C-alpha cells in the first residue's frame, strides 16, 4: 500500500508533535469551548437555534466530524477531545510531562502504580476482559440516539448528556487504567473507531524490523520521553486506525524515530476484527436510515413519535424505540446474515470460517455507512449553517452582537439542490462497498472468479437495496 510519510516530509510538523506541550496546547482551547457551551446550555436561551451548544455541537461539529475529520484525519477529534482532560490529569498528575520509572531499580519507590515504565495514580484497575470490546459503546450510542430528538434541540438536555459523559470519563480515569473510557465507553468513540478505517491518515511504524529488534518498547510501556500508549495499543504492530487516538505519545517515546504519521488512500483498513465491530456497522446504517426518515423525511407523525417530550405520545415513542432497536440489533443483521449465508452456499468450498466470511462481507457497510451519514449530514449544514454565523455573535441568545452577525436571518443554502448532492454520495458509498466486498470475496473464494462473484452476489444485492432505499428517501 502506498503511503506518504508526513513527518519526514514536513520537519516542522515532526517538531511540533514531538513537543510534550503539544497535546496540552491542542486540548485546552477545546476544553474552554466545551465549558462555555455548558454555560450556554444552562443559562442561555432555551431556543435551540439561538444557543451555541445546539448550533455548534449538533450542526457544525457533527458535520465537520463525519464529513471532514473522520475521512481525512481519522480520530483527530480524540486527540483534542476535552472529555478525558481532568481524569487524565488526575491519573497522570501531569499536564505536560510524563512520570517514568527507572527500569534499573528492582523496586521502584514512590506513590502511585507503575504500569510499564510510567507511574499512574488512582486505582488503575485493568478494564475487565469480558468488556474489552465496543458493545458498551454500541448500546450506549443506540440508547442516546433513541432520545436524540430531545438533546439535539434542547440546550439543557445537551448539557445533561455531554456533562454526564464528562463526569463519567473523569471517574473512569480514576478507577481504570489509561483511556478505558475512550476505548470502551464513549459513544462517540464507537463510531469513530469504525469509520476511522476509511481515513487517509494513519500513525504506524516506518519499518517493522526496527520495532522487532527494539528492546525499549517505549511506545507500549512508556519511558522518560512520554507515556505508554494511552489507548492500550501496541503502536509498533498496529495495522488499523480503529483504536488509535492520534495522541502522538508513540512518536515521542520511540527511541528509534520509527513511528510516524502517514497519508494513505481512503479505506486502506479493510477488515473487521469482531462481531462488536460488525454490529456497530449495522447500528450506524440503521441510524442513518432512521434519521433520514425522521429528521428530513415528510412524515410528521414519526417526528412526533421520536419527540416524546413535546408530543407526549408514549405509545408512539415505544413503537419508534422498539423498531429502532429491533432493526439495528436483529432485523438488519439477520437479513445480512441470511445474505452472507446464501452467498457461502453459492460460492462453493472455501477454507475461510463462517465468521471470517461474515466479517469480511460486513465490512462493505463501512464505506456505505460513512457515505450515508455524510449524505444525511450535508443538508443539516446547508439548511442550518446560517445559524452558525448568527450564533457566533450571540452565543447565549442574550441579545448580544459581538461580531455584527447576530441579526443574520436563517438562510438555507441551495435547498433545492440537496437531493442531487446526496445522491452521488450514496452512489459513491455503494460503489466502494461493492468494490471492497468483491475484493474480499475474491480473497476468500479463490477457486474461480465466478465463485467469488456468486458468493458476494446476495450481499451485493442487499447493499444495493440499502442504497436504493436511501436514494428513494432523498430523491422522491
Amino acid at each position, binding site marked *: 500500500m502506498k503511503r506518504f510519510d508526513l513527518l519526514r516530509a514536513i520537519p516542522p510538523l515532526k517538531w511540533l508533535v514531538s513537543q510534550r*506541550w503539544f497535546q*496540552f496546547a491542542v486540548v*485546552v482551547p477545546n*476544553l*474552554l469551548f466545551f*465549558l*462555555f457551551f455548558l*454555560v*450556554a*446550555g*444552562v*443559562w*442561555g*436561551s*432555551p*431556543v435551540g*437555534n*439561538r*444557543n451555541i451548544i445546539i448550533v455548534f455541537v449538533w450542526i457544525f461539529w457533527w458535520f465537520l466530524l463525519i464529513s471532514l475529520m473522520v475521512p481525512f484525519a481519522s480520530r483527530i477529534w480524540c486527540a483534542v477531545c476535552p472529555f478525558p482532560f481532568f481524569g487524565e*490529569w488526575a491519573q497522570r498528575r*501531569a*499536564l*505536560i*510531562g*510524563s*512520570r517514568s520509572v527507572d527500569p534499573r531499580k528492582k523496586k521502584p519507590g514512590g506513590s502511585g502504580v507503575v504500569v510499564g515504565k510510567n507511574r499512574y495514580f488512582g486505582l488503575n484497575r485493568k478494564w475487565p476482559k469480558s468488556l474489552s470490546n465496543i458493545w458498551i459503546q454500541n448500546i450506549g450510542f443506540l440508547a442516546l440516539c433513541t432520545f436524540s430528538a430531545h438533546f439535539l434541540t*434542547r*440546550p*439543557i438536555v445537551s*448539557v445533561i448528556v455531554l456533562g454526564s459523559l464528562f463526569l463519567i470519563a473523569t471517574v473512569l480515569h480514576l478507577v481504570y487504567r489509561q483511556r478505558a473510557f475512550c476505548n470502551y465507553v464513549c459513544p462517540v468513540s464507537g463510531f469513530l473507531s469504525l469509520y476511522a478505517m476509511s481515513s487517509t491518515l494513519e500513525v504506524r511504524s516506518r519499518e517493522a524490523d526496527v520495532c522487532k529488534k527494539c528492546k525499549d518498547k517505549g511506545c507500549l510501556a512508556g519511558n522518560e520521553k512520554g507515556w505508554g500508549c494511552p489507548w492500550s495499543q501496541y503502536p509498533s504492530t498496529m495495522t488499523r486506525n480503529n483504536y488509535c487516538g492520534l495522541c502522538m505519545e508513540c512518536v515521542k517515546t520511540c527511541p528509534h524515530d520509527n513511528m510516524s504519521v502517514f497519508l494513505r488512500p481512503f479505506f486502506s483498513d479493510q477488515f473487521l476484527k469482531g462481531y462488536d465491530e460488525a454490529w456497530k456497522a449495522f447500528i450506524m446504517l440503521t441510524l442513518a436510515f432512521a434519521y433520514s426518515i425522521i429528521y428530513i423525511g415528510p412524515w410528521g407523525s414519526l417526528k412526533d413519535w421520536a419527540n416524546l*417530550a*413535546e*408530543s*407526549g405520545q408514549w405509545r408512539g415513542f415505544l413503537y419508534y424505540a422498539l423498531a429502532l432497536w429491533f432493526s439495528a440489533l436483529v432485523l438488519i443483521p439477520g437479513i445480512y446474515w441470511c445474505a452472507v449465508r446464501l452467498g457461502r452456499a453459492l460460492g462453493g468450498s472455501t477454507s475461510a470460517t463462517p465468521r471470517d466470511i461474515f466479517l469480511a462481507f460486513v465490512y462493505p457497510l463501512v464505506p456505505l455507512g460513512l457515505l450515508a451519514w455524510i449524505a444525511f449530514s450535508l443538508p443539516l449544514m446547508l439548511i442550518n449553517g446560517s445559524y452558525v454565523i*448568527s*450564533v457566533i455573535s*450571540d*452565543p*447565549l*441568545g*442574550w*441579545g*448580544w452582537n459581538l461580531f455584527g452577525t*447576530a*441579526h443574520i436571518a436563517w438562510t438555507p443554502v441551495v435547498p433545492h439542490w440537496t437531493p442531487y448532492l446526496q445522491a452521488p454520495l450514496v452512489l459513491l458509498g455503494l460503489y466502494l462497498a461493492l468494490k471492497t466486498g468483491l475484493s474480499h470475496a475474491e480473497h476468500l473464494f479463490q477457486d474461480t472468479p465466478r465463485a467469488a462473484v456468486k458468493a458476494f452476489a446476495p450481499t451485493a444485492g442487499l447493499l444495493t437495496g440499502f442504497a436504493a432505499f436511501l436514494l428513494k428517501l432523498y430523491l422522491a
Partner: protein
Amino acid sequence: MKKPMEAAAALATLAACVAVIALPFCLQHAAVAEPARTRVITLTAVAAQGVWTEEEVNGTNYWCKKFAPAAITVSTGETVILRLISADVEHAMSFPELGIEPVEVKPGQVSELVFHTDTAGRYIFLCATKCGHCHDAMSGTILVLNDGDTPGMYPDPLADIEPCMMMNEGDSIGSYAR
C-alpha cells in the same frame, strides 16, 4: 518532568476555565450609566404559559418553572425602556392605548421599546403576533402613578382574566403538550 512548567500549566488551565465560565455573566452585567429618571425593565415572553414575565428565563428553568406575570409600576415623568426577549417563538409587544406600533420580539434577540410616562393610569400591553395556544392570554398592564397615588385608584381591567395554563406544582411545560 519540570515542576514549574506543570504548575504554570495547571494554574493557567484553571484560571482559563474560571474565566470562561464567568465571562458571559461579566459581559452581561457590565455597568451602563442610565440617564436620570429612566427605568429599564426586561420582559420575557413565554408562549407556552401565555405570560410576559420579569423573571429570568433560561435553558434550564424554561421547562419546569411557572413564571409570574409581570407586575410593573412606574412613576410619571419617567422614561421607560422595555427590553423585550422571547424565550421561544416570535412575539410582538403592543401598547394600543399609548399609540405605540407593535414591536417584534424574536427569539435570541432583544427588542427595545421606549416611551415616556406623562399621564398616570393603567395601560394595557398585549402580544400582537399569534404565538401559540396561549396567545390571547399574553397581556398585562403597566401602572403609572403620580406622587401620592395608590394602585387602587386605577383598577386592573385584566384582573379577572384566567391565566392560560394553571400548572400544578412539579408539572413541566411538556405535561401540557398536545
